[in-house]
């Protein structure tokens, strides 16, 4: 189901965090719960005022555990809900992120990453939590995570995050970092008819206690609290009707596989990548988020010098664009992976390439500092010569 929402055309010069909050509002977010943390606090601060303007709800919770619990509950109440935090907050939320996945709850979780582990470096831009959405909560599950590189994308990707959350009944992550969150740049807001919103499939009428409301690979309809529909919801292994069964391995097998396939079957719709100058490239550079901007700048410079190099950027980090990377690895001789960490996504690139191309990780000289163009350019020249 799709409908359109009215927003006024405007242009503004704003921080990534504010753009993210604006994107949420444009997507119809009407419930925000969170606990302030550098470098994500501006989102909560802005939402604390904006939620009242859209007759939504804002709760500053006692901690992050409550924040995630609030947005899961609010979503079951039929709201589009969101929380925003940084790595330390996500660590506290992990238990209920698993609950959101297994109860198939649409919601959006923003991680404006900072230095870690633990309290780390609050205002240093770092891509240190890239695996956390996918592997942080226990068990076997799929998740969706998007990595923006600018305030404009903080707006656009947050709208997209809500759409994918609604469409697939799943928590969707925005993986930004402190530099994107605090950076100001022009954001062009879309016109009324340029913004397309997805709304979740809702269960309209009560269909008996064994109604099918979970574990459909094509997404089951969701009953909404307060609309007179009885439903069983549990974090434990269950069948399509939500009834708990924690002893039969076959039921667990079905539950886990369907939950995963709900995302994996629709990878083509979910995964987005951006490719530049790959037609004749010998070398491709794999990067995402803010690092992509350093890479794209360098690739432009390298092309001007006649070097056959291109850029591959996953917009969707999870599910990982395995097939796209495999395809890429058949076209180029070398893939250089650039990320602002010690190589978190690198092993996935290597696995996807499966020996087709040489995969090199180029760590940043200083973690938390954006690659200088020369760092990347020197590596390209070294590889090509």
């Amino acid at each position, binding site marked *: 189901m799709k409908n359109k929402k009215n927003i006024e055309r405007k*242009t*503004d*010069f704003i921080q990534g965090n504010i753009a993210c909050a604006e994107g949420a509002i444009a997507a119809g977010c009407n419930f925000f719960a969170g606990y302030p943390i550098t470098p994500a606090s501006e989102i909560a601060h802005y939402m604390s005022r904006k939620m009242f303007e859209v007759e939504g709800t804002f709760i500053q919770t006692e901690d992050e555990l409550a924040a995630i619990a609030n947005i899961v509950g609010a979503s079951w109440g039929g709201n589009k809900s969101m929380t925003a935090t940084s790595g330390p907050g996500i660590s506290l939320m992990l238990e209920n992120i698993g609950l959101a996945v297994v109860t198939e709850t649409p919601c959006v979780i923003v991680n404006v990453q900072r230095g870690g582990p633990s309290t780390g470096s*609050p*205002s240093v831009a770092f891509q240190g939590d890239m695996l956390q959405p996918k592997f942080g909560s226990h068990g076997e599950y799929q998740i969706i995570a998007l990595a923006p590189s*600018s305030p404009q994308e903080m707006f656009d990707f947050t709208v997209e995050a809500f759409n994918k959350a609604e469409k697939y009944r799943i928590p969707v992550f925005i993986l930004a970092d402190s*530099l994107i969150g*605090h*950076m*100001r*740049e*022009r954001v062009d807001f879309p016109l009324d008819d340029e913004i397309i919103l997805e709304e979740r499939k809702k269960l309209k009428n009560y269909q008996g206690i064994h109604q099918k409301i979970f574990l459909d690979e094509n997404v089951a309809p969701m009953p909404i609290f307060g609309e007179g529909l009885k439903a069983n919801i549990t974090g434990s292994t269950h069948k399509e009707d939500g009834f708990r069964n924690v002893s039969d391995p076959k039921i667990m097998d079905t539950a886990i596989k369907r939950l995963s396939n709900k995302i994996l079957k629709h990878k083509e719709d979910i995964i987005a990548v951006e490719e530049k100058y790959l037609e004749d490239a010998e070398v491709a550079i794999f990067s995402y988020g*803010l690092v992509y*901007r*350093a890479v*794209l*700048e360098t690739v*432009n410079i390298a092309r001007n010098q006649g070097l056959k190099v291109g850029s591959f950027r996953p917009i969707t980090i999870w599910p990982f664009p395995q097939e796209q990377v495999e395809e890429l690895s058949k076209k180029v001789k070398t893939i250089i992976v650039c990320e602002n960490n010690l190589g978190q996504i690198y092993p996935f690139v290597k696995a996807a390439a499966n020996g087709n191309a040489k995969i090199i990780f180029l760590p940043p000289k200083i973690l938390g500092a*954006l690659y*200088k*163009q020369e760092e990347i350019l020197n590596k390209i020249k070294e590889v090509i010569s």
Partner: protein
Amino acid sequence: MKKVEIRLTGVGGQGVVLSSVILGRAASVYDKINAVQTETYGSDMRGGDVCTEVIIAEERIIYPIINNPDILVALSQKAYDDNFNDLKAEGIIITDSDLVNVSSLKKGIIYYHGSFNKIAIEELKKKAVANMAMLGFFQEKTKIVSLDALEKAIADLVPSKTLDLNLKALQIGVNIGK
């Protein structure tokens, strides 16, 4: 216009960050070119070191941070000492004459300075608008953004009851830059 990389530095409370947001907003919203503004500062704002950067260009700005600025605005001695070595060979330095001692300038560097702080205190009885005088001076010397755009951006970002005072400070800055 070529891409211009500007670093503004000083101490918390001088309105350095606001100045950079005004510059970026003037360029991107009103002059309709491109701007990126980033900032770093210590955990205590007032009195702590402040460093903020604005890149302004007609083309799309991809790489968002500055390694070697074209223009350095330094409003404290420490800010100057910490940053002047990063400046490009034919860069511009703008300082507050009364707050920064500029010594041993490299050949090729253009040096401008004005008594922004003193003027704000003596002529306008309000130290807080020294940054606007600096912005006016900056505009007159560099013409990177238009005065009209700057005035509109200031109107968006300062409390409305202080707008006249801020614009007055801006104009004084322009005049001493002439």
